[in-house]
């Protein structure tokens, strides 16, 4: 398992054009007591398995050749008492543990990425500035009330479905992408799939049910809708395009019953199955309600960390428990609140948080990114499935339009598949950072929309 990250400009030559430089993937910055550098480096090599250490002092005049150090797992700037390391998540934890045990290593923090300020600001700088503006606007709104012009703007929908594609594919720029998800394995853990749906004919599909007594065939509708968004056809039998990774290999894990629920163990079984089958991306439009102050479950964080270690990125719905019209914002649900699972909020056609979309109420359950999750058109079983509790919703046959963070999640999963195809050497952690760094910053609190709207 090659766990080392290919960072900075090393990335994927040939994948990038002059107009789009490769993503900057920062490492970890470790600060030592200058008189204890050697001892501290030895501790890191022992405890965290950091290999290929380059010392700045070994370069002529101390002028480090960055082209050479790219191959190094860690570059030590002896006289500064600082090292930059490429660590995977396990190594990061091991290093953090060493820091707390051993005073020789003073601090560990993400390596900052610096930019020359110019007319076109980098996305994360824009996000920072917008976050600052959000905070000031929030304070201002609270003290003096919102401006009239803001109320007018808030009423506008920026995106609509067209004859060509759904608004979600337009807003997320999936429609403009030339990638198809070919060679990428996407597991959707949900209520299954209508295996006879015309838009999935000829596709590579692997199915497995983890619900005793029920088949992969979807008699709920939810799973077919989610898989449609993540992996649906480029040219559907009728109507606009609604699917993103139209050539991805589809792994249908039925972990929710046709009645739309199950114990957590079914989802665990589905996650293990997806990891074992080498799925690159797992999309989970499911969850349970979490109370303010309630922490994530170890029983899902542990497999999510293992998934990351094995290069499987798990993406989950933040949940629909909020009622923002009544100023009720509920915490991100379980298991999306696990730190190693990417939590997806829903935005509407005006790129505002959906009324139901949960927020970063708890410190350890943050919204990471947003996807289109209101008025989402996608595939549905044909004939229409039996209405199921708790809402006994009547489905339309073959295609239907519904809302939920469930619908936002497969937008992110589908786009993750496109990016994975374009950057096949990325680790799951790098893919996560690529998704968040490319997201379209929104003029909404980061608490509600995370890094912004997912972008292909």
């Amino acid at each position, binding site marked *: 398992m090659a766990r080392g990250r290919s960072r900075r400009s090393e990335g994927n030559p040939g994948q990038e054009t002059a107009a789009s430089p490769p993503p900057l993937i920062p490492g970890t910055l470790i600060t030592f007591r200058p008189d204890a550098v050697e001892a501290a480096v030895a501790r890191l090599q022992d405890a965290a398995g950091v290999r290929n250490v380059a010392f700045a002092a070994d370069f002529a005049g101390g002028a480090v050749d960055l082209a050479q150090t790219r191959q190094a797992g860690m570059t030590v700037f002896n006289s500064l008492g600082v090292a930059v390391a490429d660590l995977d998540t396990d190594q990061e934890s091991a290093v953090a543990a060493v820091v707390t045990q051993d005073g020789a290593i003073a601090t560990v923090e993400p390596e900052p990425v610096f930019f020359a300020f110019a007319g076109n600001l980098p996305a994360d700088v824009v996000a920072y500035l917008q976050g600052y503006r959000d905070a000031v606007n929030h304070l201002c709104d609270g003290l003096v009330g919102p401006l009239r012009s803001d109320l007018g703007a808030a009423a506008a929908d920026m995106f609509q479905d067209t004859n060509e594609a759904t608004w979600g594919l337009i807003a997320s720029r999936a429609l403009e992408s030339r990638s198809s998800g070919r060679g990428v394995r996407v597991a959707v853990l949900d209520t299954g799939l209508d295996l006879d749906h015309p838009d999935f004919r000829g596709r590579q599909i692997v199915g497995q049910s983890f619900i005793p007594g029920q088949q992969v065939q979807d008699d709920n509708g939810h799973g077919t809708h989610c898989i449609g968004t993540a992996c649906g056809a480029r040219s559907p039998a009728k109507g606009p395009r609604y699917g993103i990774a139209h050539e991805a290999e589809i792994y249908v894990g039925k972990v929710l019953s046709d009645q739309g629920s199950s114990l957590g163990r079914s989802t665990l079984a589905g996650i293990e199955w997806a990891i074992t089958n080498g799925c690159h991306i797992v999309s989970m439009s*499911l969850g349970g309600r979490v109370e303010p102050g309630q922490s994530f479950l170890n029983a899902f964080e542990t497999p999510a960390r293992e998934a990351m270690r094995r290069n499987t990125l798990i993406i989950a719905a933040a949940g629909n428990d909020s009622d923002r019209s009544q100023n009720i914002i509920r915490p991100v649900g379980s298991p999306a609140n696990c730190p190693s699972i990417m939590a997806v909020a829903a935005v509407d056609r005006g790129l505002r948080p959906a009324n139901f979309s949960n927020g970063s109420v708890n410190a350890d359950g943050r919204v990471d990114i947003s996807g289109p999750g209101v008025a989402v058109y996608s595939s549905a079983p044909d004939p229409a499935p039996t209405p199921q509790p708790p809402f006994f919703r009547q489905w339309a046959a073959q295609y239907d339009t519904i809302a939920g963070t469930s619908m936002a999640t497969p937008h992110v999963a589908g786009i993750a598949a496109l990016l994975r195809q374009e950057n096949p050497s990325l680790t799951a952690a790098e893919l996560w950072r690529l998704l968040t760094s490319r997201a379209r910053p929104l003029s909404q609190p980061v608490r509600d929309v995370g890094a912004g709207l997912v972008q292909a």
Partner: protein
Amino acid sequence: MSSKSGQAEPPLNVLITVEDQFCDQIETVARNLKSAGMTVAEVFPLSRVIAGEVATENLGKVRAVEGIASVEEETTFRAV
């Protein structure tokens, strides 16, 4: 509690996470959990998680089994 009311409480569905250093011995941990009164339903070796049911009066014994990192109540997930 249950004996006073005359009605047995239903067993709790639990997810038990096994400590990292016991990952190779998860089947042994599962056997020890059975001895402690748990009904083991499924063992997930990659996840280091054991799912099953425990009567509330046995929770203390289950928590005391060597190699247990956490005992959490298993929740129901829904399509959202």
